[in-house]
């Protein structure tokens, strides 16, 4: 059990981390965003509900660490046409909550976010519940897991090629 002081310190560090992640995504700072991941990171955007089994059913994104790296490398080529030109993005993140501690000591956090995307096609609004597992690695917070539950993930979605 954390003391009130250390709990407040942790909440503040976690909030700062989540805001920073949001800014790196909005500004297409691909390498800096990738550096936030632990070596065993999992980036998951389910389709067709909140709790499908990603080992059995299709997800919009279900990247292990090496596929996260591949996704970033593709964006860095400058020839990922759907992000050439890049979407203009700004997102609001709120409702940041520390959840129960995970086995193994990972910090479990959730937030809500709303993203405004302006692309060649049109302007699109995306809304999501985000669930994270964060971990201190060499004194720095890192993401070991990020699950993005889009509110409309049961519907047909337009291309989602920026970092959500």
């Amino acid at each position, binding site marked *: 059990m954390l003391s009130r002081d250390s709990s407040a310190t942790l909440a503040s560090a976690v909030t700062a981390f989540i805001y920073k992640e949001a800014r790196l995504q909005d500004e297409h700072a691909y390498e800096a965003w990738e550096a936030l991941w632990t070596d065993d990171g999992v980036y998951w955007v389910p389709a*067709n509900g909140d709790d499908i089994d990603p080992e059995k059913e299709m997800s919009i994104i279900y990247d292990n660490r090496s596929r996260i790296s591949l996704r970033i490398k*593709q964006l860095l080529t400058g020839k990922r046409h759907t992000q050439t030109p890049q979407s203009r993005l700004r997102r609001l993140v709120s409702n940041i909550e520390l959840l129960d501690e995970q086995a193994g000591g990972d910090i479990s956090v959730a937030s809500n976010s709303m993203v405004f995307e302006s692309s060649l*096609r049109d302007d699109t609004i995306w809304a999501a519940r985000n669930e994270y597992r964060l971990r201190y690695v060499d004194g720095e917070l890192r993401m070991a897991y990020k699950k993005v539950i889009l509110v409309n993930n049961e519907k*047909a*979605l337009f*291309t989602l090629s920026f970092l959500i």
Partner: protein
Amino acid sequence: MNVVPRASQWGELIRPDRVHGSLYSDPAIFEAELQNIWYRTWVYVGHESEVPNANDYVVKSIGPQSVIMTRDEQGKVNLLLNRCSHRGNQVCSYDKGNARSFTCPFHSWTFANDGRLVGYAFPDGYEGQDKSKLALGRVTRVQSYRGFVFGSFAAEGPDLEEHLGGAAETIDRLVRFSPEGEVEVTAGFLKHRVKANWKFILENECDGYHPAFVHSSIFGVADSAIGKLYGGASTAVTRDYGNGHTEIDLRPEFRKRDTPMSWFGTTEERLPDYTSRMKAAYGDQKAREIMIDGTPHVMIFPNLFIAEIQMFVIQPLAVDDSVQHVTALQFKGAPDMNRRLRQQTMGSVGPAGLLLADDSEMYERCHRGVLARNPEWIFLGRGAKRERQDELGFKVGHVTDEIPSRGIWRHYRSLMEAV
């Protein structure tokens, strides 16, 4: 133009090596396509494995219309229109489930899962009414081929096997990849929406000219051997089966490699369980041939695209609004293969796919592009002077040639001219 061409005028818009831009952008032409293509010819709807048990149902579509595919208590597959026969309310609001009947929430009319009206509220108001005349609407003809269920709203016309013609053999080739000879559609669908006409999707599926450019970003960083299949020196071919069905046949390249599972970027050693089941099912030599050749890359007109490891179902919603429904193919009796199929499919396709997000970007840019009317035409003449016939008499050409588009438009014209 906003005026549907008369039968004699389609030839002015569809020439042997070019088609008019308005065919993609004119709302009146889209309405004519619904009548002459989507509500007439055979359209792929769903797969029998999506309703494995009695009373299972799954909601599908034919164009903008919602269709409930049910398996009734007798085990028969029905395609019912999701529209109450009373006042038109949708009777089913869930994507899938198990139900003996559907009760309309508006006035509580209840329909059996074979479409029969079995009851309505306060029946005394309907004294003398023949319930059998108030069943759910249904797709007029339903036929399946190796588990793939197709529907046609036309009471008469070619049967499904006639419609599939030479392309039926590609489905035979596909199901062999299961040691039990059956495809299963069990991994759930991603639904990817594009602001583009459906025919940009249809024509791109067997366009072997674009991968080297549209997908260079991923081929380069993934160390992929796919790019070479679509290069100038490739021996792969494009094929026109007639009836609008088209293929990219990559077998010549895979046979040169002469290595089982190379088509899928893997080896027999990495899929030991699958390999042993295939050899047990087909014998060593036949299993080896199947596993060298790879699965087909075939576009069954107008909406079923089997793309080696996944399948797409194209749904037109409006002249500039389409959905690609896509799932990993799964082969019965092949668990280790199926896992890899899901992982590769998830990376490649859908709204965030490393491949399909870029294709979809092209569809949307093409759609905006053809709104410009100079030049008026889409030019589809690539390889027109080097078309040849294969041993079965189908037109084939270089993998980058536009034989598939020309074949699609030839069939399209015949459907639009038929009254």
